[in-house]
């Protein structure tokens, strides 16, 4: 094996903070694709920047192509292609202007430039859009253009920082194909991602957590340690959320998620199956061994998912909706339409959400799911049709109706300057909780979400997982009957995501109606029903299994949610 990047006992500490990276040692093989996996704040970006020579190591040793990337950056920069998180594109320049700029900067000239442009533009399917401003491209196209700009000058090392963040599965797959084919020419690729399914496709993966490398191996060997420990409970009768809760109590089980109609479990040891009797899966239920996933290995390395029980659900009363209300239409869209000028973002969308249901809105970037979501929670006014919540148009009686809903925004919109305690006090206050009741409720939330250690910390300084807990606490403390969640888990590590969904499941069991948008396909599996939105239209509506069933073919008898998503969108394209 020829080593392209060599890292030994590397430490990086920013002034006044605990080390962002500590004792990192890893060798990256020449010509391989390495996935750098880990939750937000694990140190992925810092490691990539160190390799690109943009940061100086505090301690330790790092060599890229045999050179020190920081001190010898003049000699090395031409050989390194680095794509930062926001792709590094100039939004007010056109596609071709961006390419020309980076070609000039990377010393790609004349005929070589023309040849490369032709190749990259064809490859990225951007030939038709060369005159379009980068800012007007969709997320997926931006990402491809960013990659194209980075690949100019044919670097020997390609460093990609979370190219898949906020991008829908279709674009992610295409990007992967591009990198695969291009890397065939002996390029060394480092690909950082928080999607474990993406990392599974790499030649090797580094699992990172809290500034350290937890594991460094091929995906196959990492997964092989999990072989025989991954199970599906199929043919379940009764409530699969309750079943998951019960199953996670079994001592043999270290992790569990809902997978459409099934429940997927990971056990602590090979062959140690849990007893199906006490978990209440019903007489027809059966345990089937399934293929392990990289995520299983990651969770197992982090010590398993923790919570079986939602402490939150335990303190929330059963939701009782007024008897005169239609219990099958807690949230309803009637011919819901939104136009921005000539552009129709949402086009005659209809759906109804039952009490206690978890309803997912899925769709590619810019397809209109956010617009639909925003109209339902009253942040946008529909052009046509109605967005009803509990039978009320939020425009008619806004204050009264809003009192009954909870909302958790993308990126956990908390007041960064305020401490945890003050955030809680504020959000309970504006929902009208006063005096003893407020104090009690804040105390309860601190207990439920174990926020006590962070009480006096400004929310900006919280780790992402804690921020997410706090955001959820703020959204639910006034006891809402329905809950709107906008990409509630982006960037959060799998363990925190499991914990989050435990709470959401618990709330749904208590009768809280939940509407959620997400880019994670495994999260879509938690939903009772999914609405797939594309080009403003509802192209599919049903349970996760319904959607998967629609795309079963001979070649793919067992499609994943992602397969279903991609296939359904492609079919809509063909029409």
């Amino acid at each position: 094996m020829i080593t392209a990047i060599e890292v030994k006992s590397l430490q990086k500490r920013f002034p006044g903070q605990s080390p962002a990276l500590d004792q990192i040692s890893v060798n990256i093989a020449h010509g391989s694709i390495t996935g750098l996996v880990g939750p937000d704040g694990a140190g992925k970006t810092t490691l990539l920047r160190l390799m690109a020579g943009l940061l100086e190591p505090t301690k330790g040793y790092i060599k890229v192509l045999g050179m020190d990337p920081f001190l010898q950056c003049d000699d090395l920069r031409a050989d390194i292609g680095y794509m930062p998180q926001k792709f590094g594109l100039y939004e007010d320049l056109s596609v071709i202007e961006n390419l020309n700029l980076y070609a000039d900067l990377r010393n790609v000239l004349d005929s070589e430039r023309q040849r490369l442009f032709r190749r990259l533009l064809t490859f990225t399917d951007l030939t038709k859009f060369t005159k379009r401003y980068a800012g007007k491209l969709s997320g997926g196209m931006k990402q491809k253009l960013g990659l194209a700009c980075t690949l100019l000058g044919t670097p020997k090392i390609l460093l990609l920082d979370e190219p898949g963040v906020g991008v829908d599965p279709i674009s992610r797959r295409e990007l992967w194909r591009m990198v695969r084919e291009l890397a065939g020419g002996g390029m060394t690729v480092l690909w950082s991602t928080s999607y474990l399914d993406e990392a599974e496709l790499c030649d090797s993966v580094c699992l990172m957590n809290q500034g350290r490398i937890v594991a460094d191996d091929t995906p196959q060997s990492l997964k092989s340690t999990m072989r025989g420990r991954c199970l599906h409970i199929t043919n379940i009768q009764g409530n699969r959320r309750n079943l998951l809760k019960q199953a996670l109590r079994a001592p043999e089980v270290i992790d569990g998620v809902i997978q459409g109609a099934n429940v997927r479990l990971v056990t602590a040891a090979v062959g140690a199956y849990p007893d199906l009797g006490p978990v209440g899966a019903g007489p027809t239920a059966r345990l089937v061994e399934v293929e392990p996933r990289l995520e299983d290995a990651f969770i197992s390395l982090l010590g398993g998912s923790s919570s079986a029980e939602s402490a939150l659900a335990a303190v929330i009363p059963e939701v009782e909706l007024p008897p005169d209300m239609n219990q099958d239409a807690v949230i309803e869209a009637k011919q819901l339409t939104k136009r921005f000028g000539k552009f129709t973002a949402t086009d005659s969308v209809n759906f109804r959400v039952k009490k206690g249901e978890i309803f997912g809105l899925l769709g590619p970037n810019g397809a209109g799911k956010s617009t639909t979501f925003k109209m339902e929670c009253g942040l946008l006014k529909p052009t046509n049709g109605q967005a009803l919540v509990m039978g009320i148009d939020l425009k008619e009686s806004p204050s009264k109706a809003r009192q009954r809903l909870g909302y958790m925004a993308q990126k956990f919109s908390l007041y960064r300057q305020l401490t945890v305690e003050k955030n809680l006090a504020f959000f309970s206050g504006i929902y009208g909780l006063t005096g003893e009741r407020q104090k009690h409720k804040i105390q309860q939330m601190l207990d439920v979400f174990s926020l006590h250690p962070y009480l006096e910390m400004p929310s900006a300084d919280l780790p992402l997982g804690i921020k997410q807990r706090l955001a959820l606490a703020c959204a639910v403390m006034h006891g809402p009957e329905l809950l709107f969640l906008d990409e509630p888990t982006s960037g959060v590590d799998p363990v925190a995501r499991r914990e989050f969904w435990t709470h959401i499941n618990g709330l749904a069991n208590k009768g809280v109606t939940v509407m959620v948008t997400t880019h994670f396909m495994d999260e879509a599996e938690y939903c009772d029903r999914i609405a797939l939105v594309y080009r403003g239209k509802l192209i599919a509506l049903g349970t996760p299994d319904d959607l998967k069933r629609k795309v079963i073919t001979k070649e793919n008898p067992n499609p994943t949610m992602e397969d279903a998503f991609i296939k359904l969108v492609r079919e809509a394209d063909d029409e």
Partner: protein
Amino acid sequence: MNSGGSGFSLRRLRALNKKEFLQIVRDPSSILIAFILPVVMLFFIGYAINLDTSRVRVGLLALDGGEKAKSFISALQASPVIDLYPILSQESLLREMAQKKLRGAVVLQNDFSAKVIIGQGGAAIQVIADGGEPNTANFVQAYIMGIWQNWSLAHSQENAIKTTRPIDIHTRAWFNPSAISRNFLIPGSIAIVLTVIGAMLTSMVVAREWERGTMEALLSTPIKKLELLLSKIIPYYTLGMAAMFLCLIVATTIMDVPFRGSILILCVISTLFLGCVLGMGLLISTVTRNQFNAASATLLIGFLPAMILGGIVFEIASMPLILRFISRLFPTRYYANSLQTIFQTGFVPELIWTNAFFLIILMFFWFGITAKKTKRNLE
């Protein structure tokens, strides 16, 4: 030099400049800062700061109806610089001044005419000026004093009483014969305007590159520090010069400010000045890396010192030593002074070259810090 081209590359610089120009043309806010804001600011500063008190509102309390009093009153009325308003009583004088927005008042006591005729002195004309506006109060005093002097001269000749001939003072304001304050304020305001837009433009664009993450991408390419710096300076220098010429045109055509100097000298001095200001702007953005803080800092160390310590409205010579020293750190005073000279006097080598010398020093000072703070990495 190896194949990567580790030396300075004109081609890369050209590419970066082209990018920057395209961004300027396409970004409404840089057009706003470079072309709309200067004209609006010039217009407001030029017309709103009129230091020549052209007409003042003065009250008159005439308790005496005699001939001499009437004669003095008609002298006041005849004056082109005074608008006279009657005041009703001594007791309500101050209140009436406030209500009628009078800047001063003239009081003639009831024995005024009688005392003048007796000629034993003691016929006092009381002038009360509103000290709340010291500058205007000075003008009120001077105006009334002048009227009184002329009046008493004419009056004494009339009565063939010999008094000492007052010395005849001829005042001439060179270069600006009618002493129009706009003529020196407008060149001064061009200096303020260019300080603000020069610093604001560069500070905001670099901060924007940091915020949008494009800086990180640029830094990871084989770009050189000098290329990076020059790529920010050349486009915004061009834009600043364009704004300067726009101001020049507006000042000379619309606002009728005379221009007696040479365009070439103007360009040389403006170049040096823009060098300083762009350096300051780059430094601000390099340090703050965030648009909001960059803008606030521009306001605090760009606009305010230019306005206060630029020697445009307030005399630097009258300030305490420490402030006079601080004012030397900011290029505005040298530029404002040069502009005033170029506009009104023409080319005064000694003055212009002294200013140029200080501007060059400041340019090295600000650029030196900027170059030190600019790195080719994220540290």
